[in-house]
């Protein structure tokens, strides 16, 4: 029998069943949402970092930005709380550009070491690990992000001189943002700023960087480096 040929009572029954089906679908959707925590939270970082206000080191540096750093995404499933993904996008390139402008007398962003580069050395940056913590996990009001950067100092030929592993931290109060996305984005950006701040103030005095700078700096430049180190010391 076609639906249109049903008597009125049947049409009412069909409407009731349809309503029941709609309610069932809604309940199912709610159950799925509850079972999977809060679903997936995806954060794509966008940044506008300031240039560090420090005395630049008297060196020309090739700042290497590898593909894996630009496309870096951290994904994590937190049991009972859902899936979380933080994509850095162009943020590392922006961060290194501003960092290079403030910290080195001259710098250039490049993907790889080439033979005709007129630089004193290279700085290769990678992210070793990202961790995040949610307010429900820590029973606090804060979304927290830790990023472990690995800075590799390379000489003029691209050979590794020394590494510097730098852990950075950022947190954002959930009450200051409308949702998890906004708070996680703020916490991740603060972690990036934290790394920039610590790097720019401690580069000249860090043992790994001192070895690198000593190798590439001639006598006058070494004196300038020592001066910049003294000037930027905390």
């Amino acid at each position, binding site marked *: 029998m076609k639906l249109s040929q049903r008597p009125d009572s049947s049409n009412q029954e069909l409407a009731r069943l349809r309503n029941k089906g709609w309610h069932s679908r809604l309940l199912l959707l709610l159950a799925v949402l509850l079972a999977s925590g809060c679903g997936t939270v995806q954060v794509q970082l966008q940044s506008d970092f300031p240039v560090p206000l*420090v005395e630049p080191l008297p060196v020309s540096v090739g700042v290497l930005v590898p593909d894996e750093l630009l496309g870096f995404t951290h994904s994590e499933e937190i049991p009972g709380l859902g899936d979380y993904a933080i994509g850095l996008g162009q943020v590392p390139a922006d961060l290194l550009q501003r960092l290079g402008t403030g910290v080195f007398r001259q710098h250039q962003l490049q993907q790889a070491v080439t033979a005709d580069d007129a630089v004193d050395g290279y700085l290769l940056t990678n992210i070793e690990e990202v961790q995040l913590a949610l307010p429900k996990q820590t029973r606090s009001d*804060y979304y927290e992000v830790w990023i472990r950067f690995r800075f590799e100092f390379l000489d003029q030929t691209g050979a590794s001189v020394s590494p510097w592993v730098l852990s950075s931290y950022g947190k954002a109060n959930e009450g200051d943002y409308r949702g998890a996305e906004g708070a996680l984005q703020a916490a991740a950006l603060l972690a990036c700023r934290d790394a920039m701040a610590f790097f720019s103030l401690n580069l000249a005095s860090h043992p790994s960087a001192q070895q690198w700078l000593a190798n590439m700096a001639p006598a006058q430049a070494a004196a300038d480096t020592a001066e910049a180190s003294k000037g930027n010391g905390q």
Partner: protein
Amino acid sequence: MKTMASLYPMSFNPRLLLRIGATTLAAMLLSGCVSSTLQEVRERETGIVAGQSVLIIGKSSRPSAAETELEFINCVADDLARGAKGLTVIPVEQFRDLTFPWFEPRTAPDKASQLIALLAQPKLAAQLEAVGLRYLVWVDGRTNRTSSAGSIGCSVGPGGGGCFGFLTWDDDASYEATIWDTEDGQTAGRISSDAAGTSYMPAFVVPIPLIARVQSNACKSLSKQLLSFLANSDAAS
């Protein structure tokens, strides 16, 4: 020619008087009671002139530890800048960008005595000079819910719905502002503002919140005292 009633309409309009009275009563009823305490410790003379500015900044360094609410920092900054006697207050985010990386959570100075070393940085000193920063006010503290009790139940039926019950909670706001003078790199003084209050929410069909504005009260007290402290108006009067 104007009549007396048109010249003084409020005095002769009982309906309007009733309305104003009812509004005032409702406003009084709709806010819980708040008691507040203010303490000031002055360590040196202060004063601020045209072209000088103030920064209100919250402490935030440790993982997971509670820090001062951004809302409170903004409230104090807005209150200080308001009015004819308002001060020039630099927005904290703008300041952090202008002085990056010296005032980030991990790199900001802990003690006023560290200011002298910071001011020896030529680029930073020039930037602080450009923004005219005279006083740096560190705000520490927060508002906490100390207790809560009661319950409210709501139900909806074919004939309508409603809520019945009673809720009450206590909030405690405790903040301290430490004022650093950038001219001599010394602490100029401290002001603490504490406020506590109980909020109620009786529900007879419709819930009626009687909110004690504890944080707002602490903010207003602190900013009023800060304004007086920085301008040194208490000493002048």
